């Protein structure tokens, strides 16, 4: 199975890219970085590949190679980008995970127990009708820009989509003859859900998960961009860009480099999703 996936070009490349990214981000301290918030205002807006004397606020000073230059407060862009990746990836992963879990739960329940279906789906519709961004903005602005708030704010709007997906799978599979057969064999409902219905939802869920992950990363960066992101001390790709944008014309690298990294990441995740769809979509591996 895994080998079959690995053989698929896009899957291989995107997962390699993500892996590389993960290594860089987790191992940030070992890749020629300073602390992301170490600053020397006197070294503001250094161009790329500058070696300069860095005196941080504690008063001690040392040589450092600023790979990608510094931002308007004289902080090392390279370091901030690596550390910033931690937030983006966390947000992407956590949001994907939780929206899948909660969404599947809702979807299963309303798909298999028709009584609650009506009510649940109406709520989902209501939730879905509020554009994700608007919802997230309001929530973050209201409850303050803590990571937890951010996660909740981005997760909730994704739940309905997952729920609908799972529900449709359930409704589809319910009608399958082998489910009826299981019923005829007196198989308990929960076991039917587990053995015969859920497995059909896994592939779509994985695929959906990657897309949610990508969307989450984008929304987080958009929120930071609008000044509603995490604490200004917390470097995230979005906030780096948001801070950089006030002098975009003079120092585009501060906006574009994180932007490119962000785009690459999301691209990789999306590609992974597409690849998995090609490979896992029930349509392809049903009657072989």
């Amino acid at each position, binding site marked *: 199975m895994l080998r079959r996936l690995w053989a698929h070009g896009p899957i291989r490349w995107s997962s390699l890219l993500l892996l590389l990214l993960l290594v860089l981000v987790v191992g940030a301290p070992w890749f020629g970085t300073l602390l992301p918030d170490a600053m020397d205002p006197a070294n503001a807006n250094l161009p790329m590949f500058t070696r300069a004397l860095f005196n941080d606020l504690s008063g001690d000073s040392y040589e450092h190679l600023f790979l990608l230059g510094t931002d308007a407060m004289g902080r090392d862009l390279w370091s901030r980008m690596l550390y910033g990746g931690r937030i983006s990836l966390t947000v992407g992963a956590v949001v994907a995970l939780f929206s899948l879990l909660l969404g599947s739960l809702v979807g299963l329940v309303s798909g298999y127990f028709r009584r609650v279906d009506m009510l649940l789906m*109406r*709520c989902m*519709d*209501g*939730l*879905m*009708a*509020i*554009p*994700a*961004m*608007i*919802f997230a*903005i*309001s*929530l973050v*602005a*209201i*409850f*303050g820009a803590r990571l937890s708030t951010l996660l909740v704010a981005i997760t909730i709007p994704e739940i309905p989509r997952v729920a609908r997906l799972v529900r449709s799978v359930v409704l589809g599979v319910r009608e399958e003859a082998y489910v009826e057969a299981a019923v005829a064999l007196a198989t308990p409902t929960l076991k039917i859900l587990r053995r015969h219905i859920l497995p059909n939802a896994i592939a779509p869920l994985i695929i959906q998960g990657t897309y949610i992950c*990508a969307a989450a990363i*984008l*929304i987080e*960066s*958009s929120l930071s*961009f*609008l*000044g*509603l992101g995490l604490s200004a001390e917390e470097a995230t790709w979005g906030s780096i*860009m948001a801070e950089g*944008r006030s002098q*975009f*014309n003079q120092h*585009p690298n501060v*906006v*574009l480099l994180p*932007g490119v990294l*962000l*785009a*690459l*990441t*999301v*691209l990789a995740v*999306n*590609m992974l999703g*597409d690849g998995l769809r090609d490979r896992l979509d029930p349509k392809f591996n049903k009657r072989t």
Partner: protein
Amino acid sequence: MYIFVLRRILSTIPVLGIVALIVFMMLHLAPGDPAAIIVGDNGSLADIQRVRDQLGLNESLPMQFWHWLLRLLQGDLGRSIFIPQSVVSLIGQRIGPTFSLAGLTLVFTLLLAIPLGTIAAWKRNSWLDRGLMAASAAGFSVPAFVVGYLFIWLFGLRLQWFPVQGYIPPAQSLSGWLHGLVLPALTLAMVYIALIARVTRAAVSEALTEDYIRTARSKGIAEWRVLLRHALANAAVPIVTVVGIGVALLITGVVVTETVFAIPGLGRLTVDAVLSRDFPMIQGVTLFFSFVYVVVNLLVDLSYLLLDPRIRY
């Protein structure tokens, strides 16, 4: 058929109701205090307390909701806390730019995405197809504000082809209106094009596997005709559906894009409102956006009646 229409219209009511509840609850758990903001920079505490009383912010939540809902049903979204005007009128002032932007974006999208997607589906797995799909994946992945600033930098500042900010009402100058909207609309269209192109490709190539395509070909009719009258016509429903769902995406984009291009539309109104904790304002805009979303999708569903004769109740 008219029954279907009726059903569909009625079915939006509970949705809107739930939206209203969510919106209200969401915003009334807010820790921020509007009063203090109004009083301004040199104001003192006494002032703040006075304003709180004025705004009835000291009422109990259920009472606030009840009053709010009553007014809502009369189409009254309340008055902005800061700007001595009604939320409705403020939204009214901003609808023009946003709808112009969204409209133009939609035009760009449909003009580009659907032909591209169809061709991709037709020449499936060709380099063209792969190219288009890669491009659309990229379109998904690059955040609007990056695209926006790139466009500004390139087309606005370097080449000076388009204005880099602002909005000119069509009443003032039609050409100016269009000219000014090109960059933001393109920026906004990116994601949307990517989305629609994908769906079109998927739907059309799905349709191309159907038996009736084989029938059509066995009639010896021209390939383009097979593509348009048979494949695309059958792919229309899923495409339109996603166009509807995509409106959410569009709204998200509008907020960012309007900020980047300084377009005085609903998106910026939202951001400003949220930044300044303008409760009635935030509620108003959120409700409005949700309403638009619901209505658009209502229209989409009704369009099925035209697109697919099988849908009749």
